[in-house]
């Protein structure tokens, strides 16, 4: 929605996009496959890709014809992204990639990956040096994808193994060895969006339905507190997006929204379980099904895209403590 018209975008504001994202989340719309490209990969390409690649790939994203996945984490590199060891070696034909990416959501549906690969060793002075972002066509020879089933029994993430995969030279995104410099503003988008507190919102709606129109004090208080918290998170999230729209880089604020939003959406199913403990079982079969699912997925909410601990360390840095 926000991208330049020449690449198929509509040049609308980030707040317009915010509203649409929010409605998708609340309606539990099945948009996830395209969301990665819209939120993260597209903006990275816009900023760092060669023009011929932008002209080729971006319009296909906007037409909904191609999906992206993110290849950052590895078996031995999660929170510490800069420990990534999947290697890209420069050759005459292009870059040869070898190694394993893990937890790659939707790799099995994706057309492209934006992969973070090691192009030189880190240095004594800069632990973060030596990594480069690449655009990778996931259909290239030398890439094999195998499913990793999550604890809810679903196939969301994958292991992606690179075995002498050849990535063309013009697929380098940004500065070689300098991927660490590219993070800031994209991360603020990634962290402050409505998906960072609305993941389990349907539980709140259905809990209100289950508790009925005349709740007792305990139930009413529970609803009231949760609604107050949801409303405040939303106001914060909207305001961070307003700051982004104004061209600022609210790194601290984005981290706060994600920390508080994910902790909240994670606790919501547990609180809803407590509050509905005394309601008539006959009224709640659908609710129980949803609740069971939400409790299953709750653990991931404070891990994916940067753990609570990592976020708090970022906030602490923002407060001048580190």
């Amino acid at each position, binding site marked *: 929605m926000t991208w330049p018209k020449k690449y198929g975008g509509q040049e609308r504001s980030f707040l317009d996009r915010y*509203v649409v994202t*929010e*409605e998708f989340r*609340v309606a539990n719309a099945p948009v996830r496959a395209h969301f990665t490209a819209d939120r993260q990969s597209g903006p990275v390409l816009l900023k760092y890709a060669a023009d011929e690649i932008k002209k080729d790939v971006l319009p296909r994203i906007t037409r909904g014809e191609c999906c992206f996945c993110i290849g950052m984490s590895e078996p031995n590199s999660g929170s510490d992204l800069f420990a990534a060891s999947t290697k890209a070696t420069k050759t005459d034909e292009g870059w040869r990639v070898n190694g394993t990416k893990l937890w790659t959501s939707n790799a099995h549906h994706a057309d492209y990956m934006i992969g973070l690969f090691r192009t030189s060793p880190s240095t004594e002075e800069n632990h973060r040096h030596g990594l480069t972002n690449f655009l990778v066509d996931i259909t290239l020879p030398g890439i094999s994808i195998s499913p990793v089933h999550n604890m809810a029994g679903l196939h969301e993430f994958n292991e992606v193994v690179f075995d002498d995969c050849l990535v063309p030279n013009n697929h380098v995104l940004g500065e070689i060895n300098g991927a660490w410099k590219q993070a800031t503003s994209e991360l603020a988008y990634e962290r402050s969006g409505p998906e960072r507190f609305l993941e389990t*919102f349907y539980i*709140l*709606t*259905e809990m*209100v*339905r289950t*508790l*009925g*129109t*005349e*709740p007792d*004090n305990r*139930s*009413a*208080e*529970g*609803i*009231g*507190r949760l*609604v*107050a*918290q*949801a*409303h*405040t*998170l*939303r*106001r*914060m999230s909207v*305001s961070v997006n307003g700051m982004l729209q104004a061209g600022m880089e609210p790194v*601290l*604020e984005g981290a*706060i929204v994600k*920390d*508080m939003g994910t902790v909240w959406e994670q606790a919501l199913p547990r609180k809803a379980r407590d509050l509905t403990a005394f309601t008539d079982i006959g009224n709640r079969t659908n609710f129980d099904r949803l609740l069971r699912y939400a409790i299953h997925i709750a653990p991931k909410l404070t891990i994916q895209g940067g753990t609570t*601990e990592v*976020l*708090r*360390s970022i*906030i*602490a840095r*923002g*407060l*001048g*403590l*580190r």
Partner: protein
Amino acid sequence: MTETDDIIIDTTARIFSELGDPQTLNNACDDTWQQPLWTALADSGLTRAWVPEDQGGAGAEITDGFDILVTAGRYAVAVPLAETLLAGWLLAKAGIMMPDGPLSVAMGNADNPFRINSNGSLSGTAKVVPFAGDVDHFTVLTDKGVALVKASDCNIETGVSMAGDAMSDVTFDGVTPSTVAVVPGGFGIKDLMLMGAAIRSAQMAGGLQAILDLAVDYAKERVAFGRPISKFQAVQHNLARLGGETAVAVAAAGSAADAIANAEGANAQQFDQAVFLEVAAAKIRTGEAVGDGTAIAHQTFGAIGFTSEHVLQRHTRRLWAWRDDYGSESEWAVRLGEMIATNGADELWPLLASR
């Protein structure tokens, strides 16, 4: 933020840092600081911010008034500034000239408002009126409208709030108000509760900012095990949570203030559901933030923060007092929850998204 906002915040901050600095007041052995601080606030017009110019006030925007309150909250305000602002706002609505000197507001409760008898006198007792012993007048919400009452005519118990500020029961039996007037379009206890809760939320947002700053500075200075405690990750993460709770409080209080300003600007007769959501959310969420935030701040300071000489308690005890005023988190949550339940599940998201 507009330029006037900046000037108002700067003026408030300057007066408090010169005459109402929390550490200085905490060291003082008597109340002689009260008069100069109050005079400076009154002379600058801050105490009459919400009274229109044609009624002898400063005619500031509603949001300006809330900015004053956030700033005063940062300085752990211990004079009836918030109460006087609220009283002025209410008197202006009723078209009553605001008297000089500090004021406070008494309102009874929803089931039992104060009545004006056939002989024109009031009866009833107001519970825990903030700064009751320190003010010249009370603004009383009665069944016949807004009444202005001389404090010296009333029977004021001695008492203090959780923070040690004057706060006590006031009995109005037989007292005849100097003026009584109705608010055009009607105005009830619920409306006054909303304004009071928004005011306390703003003060709490300011107070949390103050304790965050204090705790962060202290963590950088205090050395244990050979390094500043700010280097310990457990301390960093506690303070990150305090930072988060503070951000929440600022956002919630600001959003409620904007909602009230918009409703007032639109000359709405009474506050609607959206304003109710905003204010309830602010009072609930700032109150919750105070609970978690004050615990973290005290934890960071260790024993020194638990002493009466230390400035921290000047802030945290006021935060606890403000949290109780104009309805606790639980009271607001029950009312908000009832409203949401009555509206029905399918109205919840549309209401949130409308804000």
